[in-house]
Structures are given as structure tokens and as C-alpha cells.
């Protein structure tokens, strides 16, 4: 029973274009969402988060959108750069277990030169 789903195992995008990574969730109690980026043989690195009281959060080239009615969030990266090639994970948590993150399986993003 996967509560957080990333349905695309991989995504290939041309350098300079927009990358859109998607994540769906089933638990309506989730109220805090995060995106992490992971390079091979390294731990995940925090990118951006969003609380359920918002529908958008932006940080530089990264924007996360949250659609609560659809239980869907997405990460937009624009413009995409070669260094963005990595595996991207979305994760979610809910009160009272604020700390227990539930993770998607990840999407491998490949930026083509």
C-alpha cells in the first residue's frame, strides 16, 4: 500500500527546458511535503518543501505546486541544467507523526545536453 507514488521511474529533458516531476499521494492527512535530490552513492539532499496551507512554493529555479483536491504535487525545474541529473524523491508527513516521512520510489531525471 504505497501512500506516496511517483509513477514515472525516469524522465529525460533537454538542457534549458522545464523539468516537471510528479508525485501523487493517497493519505489526506498528509500536510507537509518535501522534495529531495539524490546522486549515486550519496545521501538525499533537501531541495524544497511545502505546507498544505500553501499551493505553491518557489526557491530559485525550483517551484513546488500542491493540488490538495487532486492529492498531487509537482516539482518544476526551470531552466534545467546538466547538474540536475539525479534521482528525485518526494516525501510526505502528517501530524502527529511529524517526523515520519513517507517516501516515493523516486524519478530518475536525465538532462540531455
Amino acid at each position, binding site marked *: 500500500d504505497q501512500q506516496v507514488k511517483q509513477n514515472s521511474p525516469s524522465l529525460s529533458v533537454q538542457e534549458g527546458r522545464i523539468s516537471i516531476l510528479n508525485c501523487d499521494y493517497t493519505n489526506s492527512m498528509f500536510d507537509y511535503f518535501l522534495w529531495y535530490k539524490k546522486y549515486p552513492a550519496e545521501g538525499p539532499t533537501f531541495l524544497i518543501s511545502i505546507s498544505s496551507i500553501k499551493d505553491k512554493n518557489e526557491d530559485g529555479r525550483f517551484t513546488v505546486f500542491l493540488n490538495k483536491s487532486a492529492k498531487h504535487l509537482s516539482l518544476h525545474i526551470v531552466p534545467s541544467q546538466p547538474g540536475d541529473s539525479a534521482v528525485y524523491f518526494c516525501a510526505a508527513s502528517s501530524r502527529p507523526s511529524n517526523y515520519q516521512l513517507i*517516501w516515493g520510489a523516486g524519478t530518475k531525471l536525465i538532462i540531455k545536453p
Partner: protein
Amino acid sequence: GAGVSQSPSNKVTEKGKDVELRCDPISGHTALYWYRQSLGQGLEFLIYFQGNSAPDKSGLPSDRFSAERTGGSVSTLTIQRTQQEDSAVYLCASSPGLRQPQHFGDGTRLSIL
């Protein structure tokens, strides 16, 4: 370095042996987490420590798994009588507190022969 440090980075052992994995969190971070990532999967929560509170062990898969955190800092994850299904990357993370992004170490890749 100022990041989360895990050791060893790789561990190969025979089925039935005990293993100990170590995590040094970021100084001042009160929360510490252990996760497990199997090939092609998202991160699976194992255990959470917060300050001097009793740890949340709800994610530990069996009683062969245990963890402790000494002096509110370094943590050790112990797996007794290892099985082949224990083969995975074990990741440790720390955060300044609840609802704060978790910072990860590079993990220990455990292989059970």
C-alpha cells in the same frame, strides 16, 4: 566536515553475523533518523530519536534490529543474525527539530552473502 557522517560506507558480511552501523549527526541537531533503501525503492523509515524522549521504533522490521543513541549524539544501528533480505543501503539523517528538513549522510551499503 559539518554534515552527517556514517561508517562504514560499505559492509560485506556473511549471513548470520551481527553488524553495527554508526551515525554521527550534525552538531546541535536533536532529531536523528534511520532509514533503509532497497534497490529501486523509496526510503523505509526504521527508527527516530528526539532529544531524551523514548525513540519511535515502529519502523524496525524485526527484533533482530535495534538502535541506540548515546549522549544525544552518536547513534548505532545493530542488526543481529543478518539475513540476505537485510541487504540494502542504510541511511541516517538528522534535523534541528520537528518539521525541519532532514539532512542525510551518504549511507552504509550493506551486503549479506
